[in-house]
């Protein structure tokens, strides 16, 4: 029997208590209320229970219990993907993974870490800063409670993505509780005590990456670490014509001197309106190296400067400090633009070449719908693609305002697909839009994979639902 909308049963509460202990399970209205939504625009859906396991064995028992009662299970990290992905679309058990917060191993020489699924980006960063100062993760600009695991599983990106790609590409292995309750390892750790690589085996990690918890609960993750350099600087190149930006990015990426490249454009504050700001991060181990790299980047953009089509912004020390902060906490303040504690974005994964088209389509939508906005773009790979975030703030106390943002998000999702891009971490309705455009063979494969791995349909049903 497939899993339909479930209503709680008394005995299940007792069984969950026996698994995780009374203090780590709740069916109280307060927890059910909070766990029914994330900070984005998606309407709330209440779970029946919230549980917080501490070990893989506990996760396994929860999943087995879910199978016994045919009850949905929804894994949750920091609940910060903003697109309502941790709402239990068919009710059931929300599994808050954050008590599983051990950093199990750091292999300094092979440059990887093994973490439990609840380890936050903030904690891993702090741990490395303190104990392994020559190593770093590719920090996303998400608030620091976001989990390393969920971020990698949803194809997140961060400060090193321009060099090394999506965070999902940095995964070296994982331990997963399958929807049937079996535990399995994928990557080198399935053969060896070392979690160094997914190659050269059949790449089973793909069964769990990009699925929004639809195919299993990852309990441990191996993630690549990278060299941390002594010097870090930021430069901002400003243009007033969006059609130049993809070339600017291409040229900077071509130098291979930049660590991270982002672009932002927004109508407020006034001085920023109408401009595109390409933010270029440079790292080095000496001042000479830093100077050299910055010089090469400047030279790469010299034509724009000479033709007065662009120039580098003077940055005060305070501005530099703000841009160099990891994660950049300033970003979250966008939620206060309408004094209403909310924003959500469509993160469009697009070829960099489409920058101008994507920019103009975005402007057309915001002007037509009259919404506040900011565009924030991160380059992934050496301009292999970009994550173009169309961010819309809203006032959560004003339902009409929320609805306006929802509409803008929906229209943007559609526009992105029309442009040939793909919405990242798509909300359930946007997943349907993607599926509508998807190759039939790929859809059948998605359906078969889900049916094979999850015969009872208990794992986060409602996501990637091929009709």
């Amino acid at each position, binding site marked *: 029997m497939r899993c339909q909308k479930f209503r709680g049963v008394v005995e299940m509460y007792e069984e969950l208590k026996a698994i995780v202990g009374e203090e780590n399970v709740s069916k109280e209205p307060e*927890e059910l209320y909070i766990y029914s939504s994330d900070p984005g625009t998606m309407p709330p859906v209440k779970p029946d229970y919230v549980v917080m396991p501490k070990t893989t064995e506990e996760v396994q028992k929860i999943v087995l219990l879910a199978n016994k009662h045919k009850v949905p299970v929804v894994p949750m990290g920091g609940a910060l993907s903003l697109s309502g992905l941790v709402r239990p679309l068919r009710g059931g058990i929300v599994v808050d993974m954050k008590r599983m917060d051990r950093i199990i191993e750091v292999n300094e020489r092979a440059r990887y870490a093994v973490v439990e699924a609840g380890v936050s980006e903030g904690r891993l960063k702090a*741990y490395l800063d303190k104990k392994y100062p020559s190593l770093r993760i590719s920090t996303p600009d998400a608030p620091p*409670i976001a989990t390393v695991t969920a971020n990698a599983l949803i194809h997140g990106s961060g400060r090193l993505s321009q060099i090394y790609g999506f965070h999902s590409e940095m995964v070296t292995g994982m331990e997963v509780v399958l929807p049937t309750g079996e535990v399995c390892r994928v990557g080198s750790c399935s053969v060896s005590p070392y979690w160094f690589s997914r190659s050269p085996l059949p790449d089973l990690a793909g069964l769990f990456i990009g699925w929004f918890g639809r195919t299993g609960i990852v309990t441990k993750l191996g993630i690549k670490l990278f060299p941390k350099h002594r010097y870090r600087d930021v430069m901002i190149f400003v243009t007033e014509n969006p059609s130049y930006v993809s070339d600017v990015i291409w040229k900077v990426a071509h130098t291979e001197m930049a660590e991270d490249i982002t672009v932002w454009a927004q109508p407020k504050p006034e001085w920023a309106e109408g401009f595109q700001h390409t933010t270029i991060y440079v790292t080095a181990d000496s001042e000479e190296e830093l100077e050299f790299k910055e010089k090469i980047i400047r030279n790469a953009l010299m034509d724009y400067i000479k033709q007065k089509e662009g120039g580098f912004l003077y940055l005060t020390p305070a501005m530099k400090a703000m841009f160099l902060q990891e994660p950049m906490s300033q970003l979250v303040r966008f939620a206060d633009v309408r004094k209403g*504690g909310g924003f959500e974005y469509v993160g469009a994964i697009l070829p960099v070449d489409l920058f101008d088209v994507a920019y103009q389509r975005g402007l057309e939508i915001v002007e037509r719908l009259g919404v506040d906005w900011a565009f924030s773009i991160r380059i992934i790979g050496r301009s292999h693609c970009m994550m173009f975030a169309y961010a819309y703030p809203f*006032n959560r106390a004003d339902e009409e305002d929320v609805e306006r943002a929802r509409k803008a998000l929906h229209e943007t999702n559609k526009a992105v697909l029309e442009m040939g891009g793909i919405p990242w971490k798509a909300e359930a309705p946007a997943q349907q839009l993607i599926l509508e455009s998807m190759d039939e063979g790929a859809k059948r494969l998605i359906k078969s994979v889900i049916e094979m791995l999850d015969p009872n349909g208990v794992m986060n049903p409602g996501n990637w639902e091929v009709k």
Partner: protein
Amino acid sequence: MMEKVNYAEIVHRCFRCGYCKFPSDYSEINCPSYAKYRFETYFSGGRMWLIRAWMNNEIEWSEHLGEIMYSCSTCRNCVEHCVFKFNEQLVDVFIAARSDMVERGQVPKKVGEFFSNLAKFGNPWGYAARRLEWVGRDYANNEFLLHAGCVATYDDRAKRSLKALLELLDAVGVDYGVFSDEICEGNEAMVMGEFGLFEQLMEQNRRRFEERGVKKVLTPDPHAFNAFKNYYGMDAVHHTQLLWNLVNNGELKVRRVKEKLTYHDPCFLGRWNGVYKEPRKLLSRIGSLYEMPRNRKDSFCCGGGSGNFYTDYLGGKDSPARIRVKEAAETAEILVTSCPVCLMMLDNAVSDEGLELEVRDISEVVLEALKS
């Protein structure tokens, strides 16, 4: 009347982003109630959303909601680390929401007991005994009124630290007296949202201060210090400030102790009132001070504030106090603090954890340095 923040204008502005769960470097969970419970309901963001839901009748008041609200120790870590512009008002929002709950008679059982004991007996435990007769120095136009506060008066461990302080004051000849029938200054009633009771206690205290000509209050209790300084508008001195002055100007001559010291910042002294330097200067003069990873504005609360030393919502095996003493044990041999509530909480936690660590009030350390 106490000014109540209009939280209806603020609560919906919380994004539930969780910056407020952390210290500056994101290394650990730094909200004591979230550290203990780990449900998203138990941190600042969860509380903001729940208050809004309660205000909009999306959830009803319940004992559980009350416990969530009162397990906040008002430590102000969230105020320090929330990145939004309303950060300064976060704790005021919690206090105001509690106050509205109190007005509707919606308080959890243990909180109700706390209030009724305070109202009837002038202390949270309902002890009937007069408080400070044993000191034998009734206030008579002295330079300072020494206000001990409830915990230093009644808790045995904290009382020992009060005695050490009195011994020090006597050793230098500080001119102080006590009210042997001291009554609570009401700081906890205020932060727990019982504004009526707080105003009543403030009124009583003020009348007595006026009648007996009190101008300056000296207290070892940061909670009382906070109330006197910020709500009574009085000239208030915390014992760390006085002791540092005495040591610094040579009136108290101290030698160095050999054990490694670390210092736990009490929330009502540190984050509430910005007193970070004096205790550190004092301890550095006496011995080798080693900082715990979480210190000053990033200090991790002992879990006793806002009546939690009585209600015990933050007790048990994952209690913040137990987390804190383990951190201290990795840093030093003596954990020094300067608050009777912290002293009591941390001392109990050391026994529960079976650690070698000693927990002392700063006055006890200064006294030892004086004698040695």
